[in-house]
């Protein structure tokens, strides 16, 4: 508004640049957040959102450019300085300590040595004011993901921040919990605080945010009014091209069940991952069956017991292509024609510090050709590796880098390709596109679609409800170690699934 004296933005990043070796994570990125607004930071995985946030809260130092707070140039050498200035951050991966209590966790985020008793009273006050529910004396290890996020938010709020930064806050929440969070954010905005909301969920951003800054490939693309945009136009800004539409493979036959889960129970392993209670499921040839649910409801245990990393107490409770497999290890289950893709790419699906070609061996060592008589045939291995790279468009620098050097999308394409080329009759995939860029995600979904059309039974566990609604044939929900009855995607709604994710069925 020319002519009028508008106050300077509360927090402003001016042409921030950050390099990591050859990679330019942020290239002269600018962003301005004003008091009393909810501002979205949009971008794909790898667009540089996290780097920008880390510079704005003192965890990273920019190579060039400057930060301004209320119009005044500032330097945040460390998070404490940023916090003292009034910047509060809720990280995507919570900065919480499992073994400590809520009040201890909060104390660790605040300066000074306030007695824990008085701090607990302040937590109760804050909880009441903003409609959060948190018990100060509980240990964080016992809390659900949603509760943990509330602990983070309370810790931030007790520092009385003027700018609150939330990194992908809704990715771990049920739709219901997300609504609660939005109400809290509205209260904060009304108090004149500024909220920076980082997300890639376009519907939320359009609903909640007043303005949006879009990043792509480490560069500033534009600042827009999200309410004036469509989800499609925002996606175009983020991706820089039309987002490939999923191919719906038309009518194909659904055949006999290839995976049968029959009253599977699993005791808790003591640390994390709840136990499984009486899981029953049939996955048929030619279908994609999706399991929705918030992380921490037993998905990890389910994957481990399906892949054979944990054995089922009753061998008959898991049947792969007619053979009782509950008592078999991963290698024997693969021999039955099963293939598995875990959630964690680095450290579970692949060994981060081993070469990509060696990582091929992880799931193919007992398929014949590559290893015979205990000896590894390097030439056969190299051929298979080249085949995966070519067919699945895996891109990387160098000839055969360590797995940790690949981007999330490329590593995931490698991991999926490694299984698909084994020609499995059953594929169990945990979070197929988590942290993967849009193009790779579309490619992966299409690959799974094609496999199912060829008669493979595909079981997909995902936290991304939209993804499941888009490409699964049937859906069920995992909550507290239990599985709901699967329903055809066409016969259900986002709301119904959302309710079940919050445990409405179990109640």
């Amino acid at each position, binding site marked *: 508004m020319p002519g009028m004296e508008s106050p300077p933005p509360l927090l402003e990043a001016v042409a921030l640049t950050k390099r990591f070796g050859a990679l330019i994570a942020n290239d002269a990125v600018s962003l301005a957040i004003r008091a009393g607004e909810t501002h979205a930071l949009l971008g794909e995985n790898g667009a540089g959102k996290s780097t920008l946030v880390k510079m704005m809260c003192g*965890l990273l130092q920019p190579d060039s450019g400057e930060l301004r707070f209320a119009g005044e140039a500032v330097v945040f050498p*460390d*998070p404490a300085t940023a916090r003292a200035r009034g910047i509060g951050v809720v*990280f995507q*991966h919570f*900065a919480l*300590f499992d073994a*400590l209590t809520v009040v201890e966790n909060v*104390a660790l985020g605040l300066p000074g040595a306030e007695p824990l008793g008085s701090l607990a009273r302040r937590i109760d006050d804050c909880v009441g004011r903003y409609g959060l529910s948190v018990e100060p004396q509980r240990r964080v290890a016992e809390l659900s993901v949603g509760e943990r996020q509330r602990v983070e938010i309370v810790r931030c709020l007790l520092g009385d921040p003027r700018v609150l930064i939330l990194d992908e806050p809704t990715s771990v929440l049920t739709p219901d919990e997300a609504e609660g969070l939005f109400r809290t954010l509205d209260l904060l905005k009304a108090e004149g605080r500024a909220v920076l909301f980082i997300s890639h969920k376009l519907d939320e951003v359009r609903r909640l945010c007043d303005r949006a800054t879009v990043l792509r490939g480490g560069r500033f693309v534009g600042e827009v009014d999200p309410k004036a945009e469509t989800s499609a136009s925002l996606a175009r800004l983020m991706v820089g091209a039309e987002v490939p539409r999923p191919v719906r493979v038309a009518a194909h036959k659904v055949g006999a069940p290839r995976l049968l889960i029959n009253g599977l129970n699993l005791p808790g392993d003591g640390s994390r991952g709840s136990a499984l209670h009486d899981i029953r499921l049939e996955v048929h040839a030619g279908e994609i069956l999706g399991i929705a649910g918030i992380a921490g409801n037993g998905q990890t245990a389910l994957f481990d017991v399906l892949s054979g990393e944990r054995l089922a107490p009753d061998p008959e409770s898991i049947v792969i292509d007619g053979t009782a497999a509950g008592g078999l290890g991963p290698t024997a289950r693969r021999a039955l024609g099963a293939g598995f893709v875990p959630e964690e790419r680095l450290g579970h699906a692949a060994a981060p510090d081993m070469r990509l070609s060696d990582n091929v061996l992880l799931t193919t060592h007992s398929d014949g050709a590559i290893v015979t008589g205990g000896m590894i045939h390097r030439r056969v291995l190299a051929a298979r590796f080249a085949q995966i790279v070519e067919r699945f468009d895996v891109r990387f620098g160098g000839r055969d880098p360590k797995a940790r050097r690949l981007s999330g999308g490329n590593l995931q394409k490698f991991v999926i390709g490694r299984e698909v080329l084994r020609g499995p009759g059953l594929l169990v995939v945990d979070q197929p596109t988590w942290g993967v860029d849009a193009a790779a995600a579309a490619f992966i979904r299409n690959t799974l679609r094609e496999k199912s059309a060829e008669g493979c039974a595909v079981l997909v566990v995902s936290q991304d409800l939209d993804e499941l609604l888009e490409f699964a044939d049937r859906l069920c929900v995992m909550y507290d170690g239990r599985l709901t009855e699967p329903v055809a995607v066409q016969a259900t709604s986002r709301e119904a699934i959302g309710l079940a994710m919050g445990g409405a069925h179990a109640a």
Partner: protein
Amino acid sequence: MLDVAVTGAVMASVVAAATPLLLASLGELVTERAGTLNLGVEGMMIVGAAVGYATAYGSGSLLLGTVAGVLAGTLLSLVFAGLAVWLAANQVASGLATTILGLGLAGLIGAPFVGTRLDGAPELHVPGLSDIPLVGQVLFGQDAFVYASLVLLALVGYGLARTRIGLVLRAVGESHVAAHALGHPVRRIRTLTVMFGGACAGLAGAHLSLAYTPFWASDMTAGRGWIALALVVFSAWKPLWLLVGAYLFGAVSILQLHVQGFGLGIPAQLLSALPYLATIGALVAISVLKQGRGAPAALGVPFVPDR
């Protein structure tokens, strides 16, 4: 047999034998609670013993010797901290290297003193209390190291559980990533805890050469540093259980000496092996009981700050 004075003397010797174990394991417990596993205890301890003895012998002052022993242990711990904390090298290998270096250095420093003897640290009697049969003998007739170890134990126990420093320290040992994100100086805190561990190990060594024996002999720690490491596991990282564990081990080592003295026809070597076998037994027992609970979650994991 059950003469009160004899029983008292035996129990007092148990306390004396337990003290270096208690001191060294107390320091290591603090180091480990902040997330660093320092296998260099044996090396830091013996350097403390050698430097302590050499200084006390040269200066005639036990106090000066003790201070020198503590400093020597701390200095050697800095070598470990440089490797394991600042260069994020493998902690097991770094600790081993520290122990090997420490054993060598101690041998060099102690070589001129082999065969000499000192007047050991005096027993400090508390008038009145020391004359109480049994209790007085055990509790109030000890040297200053024993009292120091108990005071230190109380301080560490209180500090870890009740103070902000203790809270931050535990947080760093629980998750250095989260602690770093909240702005706590992870590597500085870990370095300080490693130094505390070194100081305690040095003090434990000084107790061996200045009060317990009191002379210098090559390899005189005889694996006590390793037993101290096992005690930390045995205590499930709780200071009070360290006291129980250290005194139990003190009892085992005194017991085997007395049984050897009686000459019951049991091979002396078997009896000498008892403390080591007991250590293995204790490690197995605690592993079965605790299933790994109680260990700081980030123990042994090197911290490299986000780039």
